[in-house]
């Protein structure tokens, strides 16, 4: 069938979604409360949904729709809910104890963005302009770094999963931005892996809680050296 919106519009939408994601991730790396962080994660999912939705409308291929479903379904609903569920079961305060103060964390986190832009600019600007959504790739990279950064500064296992999912979102964004998308096998494999990965993490978390109820990663010191 033929597309509902033009590629240009889709690109615009993806572009905006990318910026939105960027803002969310940046904010997410410094929020104080755990459930807020989860909420932000859900919003990221929504943003991805918008992006992939736009792509799907433009491409009108069933697997783009599949991508859209995954984004909305898994990233915006399932994972946040699962995390919230675990959180409610956890015997911990919903306050996040970050290790470094926000005053320090925020500038560092903010630095990731110009870094990403400077790294990818040559392909999104200038004569070899490969993409219609110039912000998509830089944003994706920034999400990657921000997610990692979140994992570094947060003690709790949940927040680490959140950071991880943020990174995944980055990838997802990049994948979506690749209009006329990746080979299906790849996308499929990626999806399966991510799901099983998160599943295994849940399993381990479940086990770990037996001796580390707060899932505090700093109580996880292995033997030194």
């Amino acid at each position: 069938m033929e597309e509902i919106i033009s590629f240009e519009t889709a690109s615009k939408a993806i572009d905006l979604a990318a910026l939105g994601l960027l803002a969310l991730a940046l904010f997410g790396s410094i929020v104080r409360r755990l459930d807020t962080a989860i909420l932000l994660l859900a919003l990221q999912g929504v943003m991805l949904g918008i992006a992939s939705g736009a792509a799907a409308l433009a491409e009108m291929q069933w697997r783009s729709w599949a991508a859209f479903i995954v984004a909305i379904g898994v990233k915006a609903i399932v994972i946040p809910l699962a995390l919230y569920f675990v959180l409610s079961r956890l015997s911990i305060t919903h306050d996040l104890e970050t290790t470094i103060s926000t005053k320090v964390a925020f500038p560092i986190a903010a630095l990731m963005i110009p870094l990403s832009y400077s790294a990818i600019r040559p392909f999104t600007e200038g004569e070899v302009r490969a993409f219609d959504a110039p912000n998509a790739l830089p944003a994706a990279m920034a999400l990657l770094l921000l997610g990692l950064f979140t994992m570094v500064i947060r003690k709790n296992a949940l927040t680490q999963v959140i950071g991880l999912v943020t990174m995944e979102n980055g990838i997802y964004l990049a994948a979506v931005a690749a209009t006329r998308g990746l080979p299906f096998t790849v996308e499929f494999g990626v999806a399966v892996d991510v799901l099983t990965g998160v599943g295994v993490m849940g399993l381990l978390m479940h086990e770990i809680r037996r001796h580390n109820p707060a899932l505090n990663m700093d109580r996880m010191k292995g033997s030194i050296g």
Partner: protein
Amino acid sequence: MSGLSLPAWTMLLPIFGYLAAVVAAILSVNGKNALRPVSSLITTASALIGVVVAVSALLDNETQTLRGWELFNGIQIGFRLDSLAAFFLLVISFPAIAAAIYGIGYLDSAHEPGHAAAQLPQRAGIDGAAGAFLASMSLLVLADGIFGFLIAWEAMSLTSFFLVIGDGANTARRSAAYTYVVMTHIATGFILFAFLGLAQHAGSFNFTQIAGAAGSLGAWQRDATFFCALLGFGTKAGLIPLHIWLPKAHPAAPSHISALMSGVMVKTAIYGLIRIIFELAGPGPRWWGTVLILAGIVSAVMGILYSLMERDLKRGLAYSTVEHLGIITLGLGIATLLFNDDRPELAAFALFAVLIHLLNHAAFKSLLFLGAGAVQTATGTRDLERLGGLIKRMPRTAIFVLIGAASISALPPLNGFAGEWLLFQSLLKLGGSDDTAPIATLAGIGAAALALTGALAVACFIRLFGIGFLAQPRTDEAADAHEVSKSMQFGMGLLATCCLFFGIGVTFLLRLIEPVVAQLSADSAPPPVLFARGVSTDSLQGSYAPLFVALGLVVVGILPWAIARGLFGKVGRRIAPPWVCGFRIETGMQYTATAFSKPLRLMFQFVIRPDRTVVIDHPDSPYFVTGVHYDETVRPIYERYIYDNLVRGLFGFSRLIRPMQGGSIRAYLGYVLVTLILVIVLAR
């Protein structure tokens, strides 16, 4: 002259023989007790074959090669038996005969815990390792190509490592073996550099091709190669200050192995140096020779000084090995300097000196270690201060050791002096090679150092023999010592005979090794004439005719007694206790080894820095002393100032890094993030 002109494959016979010995040892682990000596006997036979192969190769003087197989990336395993290899095969093999035979009796009746070979497995271990050790050494000299060389080199180090550590029962041996294996391994690294540099230039790993390409080497390549080779082989040769493993490791091994390590193994380093300098990387600039000469001087003097300070029989001998390797290096330095000066005929002379001394050292150092082993077997101790009076209790051993001591002290007409005489002559040739003051002074200093070393060696071995074997036993162990078993006597006797014959018949040796020198100095090298009849005043060379000197000594020795007899007739001889100012003579009155070397210790304080500890114990009042303990130990300065700091540095660094692995997952994630960012930034 021409030998048996054996086919090429025979060069591998000794190696296979040794390996057969290893197999025999392994089989005998749980075998019957009667099988004990089998392995040693096979080793003996293989060593004999080795001697035959080597001598015949030297006699018919042609290079034989065996193509092996390609291992990987052009690494070729091949074998070559040229004159140099043959000579070293000889140096390896003839002490091996003695050591193997000696080993039979020694292992039957070794005292020291850990060497006690009553239980078969351990003995099998020692025999097997010894076989592998000899095999690797023979392979080392036969290997044609750096890879075979390195494999043999490492195998040699490892097998000897296992022999040194034995059953590792006591800490001292463990640490000795550890120091040894680590130092030799790191040294191997430098040898690797030297070789790989050459191989890269030649585009081949084979000595033949490398030697072929040596001409086009760049100056700095030569120098780098030489430098690395000096560090690497210098460590194995025990040049000060790279030697610290040597006096630890050599004594720790069973004595017949110590004999092989000290008498033979260290020589492989000289082999490597000769190959590098004269075939693969040379000729180079002058400073090579100078450096070698100076290094040799330092090692020789310091080595013999430390040897003088030792109370432990075998440690003393090990230090004297340092000394002699220093002397050999000195000679090699002379040869190198002259070779690099493009004076092949003079270089040839120096090479003769080096090789002869090397051969002799193999004989008498092995002999002395076997002797030390015999003493240890008979008394259960190696501490000079606990010995004495052994000459009456183990007369044959005493004679053998005396011969060894006289040879190593370079006394005419024994073999030690022949080598030293040639060295002095080559120093003279060096001084004459160009009449500039520096070279002359170098020669003069070298001569002085050699003389000092010789004199100190005399002192050292007078001390060793005099305190250890003469006068009264100082302890009960020494008092009820007994002569050792026949096989041990045979081993020692064999080498003692070598010492005598190498001394008298040095001329024949010189003619035997003529092809070696010719191969190295690329010049038909007539062996130096030791003995010139009929003197024409224009060409008056220094000369030394061992046989005549020996005869002369006998005649002149008899003469005064004959005169006395003729003039005053026969006189009697009474046996009486010695006069000690009217006191009853006690063993405590005898001079101790420590006291004997005291004056020298005082005079050379500034280099050897002895630690003196005097403990005066008095029960209550300081005026009523019940006993005074005096001990003086020598802890080498370089250990104090170099090696300790190195080790400390390593561990400091490690402790510095260790917290990085703190166990905090967030830190780990942090590393990932930082690395990622860094690489991104760097990559742009």
